């Protein structure tokens, strides 16, 4: 029985593995964040990241060298996410956006500093309400908000990640942010922060 050093090296790390690690692993932070925002807890986020990398490794031969690897990895993750959590989240409860606007105007009138205004909207949230509000968004809208506002990706890159035209990126962002503030308003009202006369 011949056992060469080569076969040992193969056992430890194949060339494919080394290349994959070099190319794909540096993007784990982005994937982890998306995973965390989509699943809502660290255990599921871990699993989704792991599943994504195993799949990506398995299909490494199919990856076209020189193309956007972040977009490629992201798409594998998004498909895994959708397969796993098939019960697609529905549109959030209908929100009366005029109410949201009235609320905004009511706190705006006596406020001068824009930063102060932000503090008045977000500062009164319970710690995980913003997270919960984001999680309540339908996948398509949540995805663009996460990629743009948390990860700081350009519209162009988002379009490539999600495989949609730029025009769709901008309309989803607009609607996504609108749904988000509708949800935040709901929380504020539930806690009585928005009083009856402000409506």
């Amino acid at each position: 029985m011949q056992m060469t050093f080569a076969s040992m090296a193969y056992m430890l790390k194949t060339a494919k593995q080394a290349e994959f690690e070099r190319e794909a692993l540096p993007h784990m932070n982005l994937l982890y964040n998306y995973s965390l925002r989509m699943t809502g807890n660290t255990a599921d986020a871990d699993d989704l990241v792991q599943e994504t990398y195993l799949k990506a490794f398995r299909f490494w031969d199919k990856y076209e060298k020189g193309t956007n690897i972040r977009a490629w990895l992201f798409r594998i993750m998004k498909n895994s996410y959708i397969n796993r959590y098939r019960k697609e989240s529905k549109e959030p409860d209908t929100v009366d956006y005029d109410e949201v606007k009235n609320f905004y105007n009511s706190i705006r009138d006596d406020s001068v500093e824009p930063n102060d205004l932000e503090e008045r909207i977000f500062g009164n949230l319970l710690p995980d309400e913003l997270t919960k509000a984001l999680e309540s968004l339908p996948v398509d809208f949540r995805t663009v908000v996460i990629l743009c506002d948390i990860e700081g990706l350009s519209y162009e890159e988002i379009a490539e990640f999600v495989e949609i035209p730029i025009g769709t990126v901008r309309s989803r962002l607009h609607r996504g942010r609108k749904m988000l503030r509708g949800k935040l308003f709901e929380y504020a009202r539930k806690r009585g922060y928005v009083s009856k006369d402000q409506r």
Partner: protein
Amino acid sequence: MDCREAMQWLSDAVDKRLERNLDREIFEHLERCKNCRSEYEMERLTKEGVRRRLVSVKAPPPLVERVSESLVTVPVERTFFSAVRAFSGSRTFRWSVAAGLAIILVLVGVNVLDRGAGSRGDVLANTEKNYDAMRMGNMVPKMVAYEAERVQEYFNDQATFQVMVPAIDQCAYISGLVSMNQDVQEAHILFKMDDSTYLYCYQVDVDKAMADQTFTVPDEAVPMLDRNEWYIKSTGERTMMLWKVGNTLCAAVSSMEKEEMRKLLAAND
């Protein structure tokens, strides 16, 4: 610019990505239109709130480790890697330490083989020893793949007798090895089914194995093999099987349920 257009470009305005003309036009509109202006301010505030309060976090180091470890496609005992990790330090350092330890394992592996498959004796006993050696990484595969076809190609290329790699899809990976044992060629196939379950299959040419009684099978198994029946024996947590396909003697061992194991293997009978 009218309200409809303003709404269309609103997210771009918030993200400050409009080219100069369009940017001026939309802000002129926002000056004039209170409704659109408050839409703009609300969207801007929402974005700012999310950006500031939901910061991007780093993937936890244990996850990075786990992902990178899961890409090691060969069945090496976890404890082996844990021991290596205890040395800590840089990745490169760890890999070189691992390589060093691995060379020691090769020597151990050869010894295991000498005492295991190398000795004359019962095919089932040897199969069980090989099963352990393969799982522990003491017997090093020459071929590791996700698809049975690729492992089959390896055996077609390397083996002088007909080796049949069962086409089991639902496994994590398959490793294969051809070795010589007293001038008799043996094929080893190990399926990793999940984190803790393996299925090992041993194959050898019947005529060569039985010549000069290099290998023996349990007496009661002989008539069953002659009738092309399966000989199945359960010992504690392991199930062993012995059967014949054409001129190839096959033995398998696993911690899997007897029926499940039989089903997986028989599909290729």
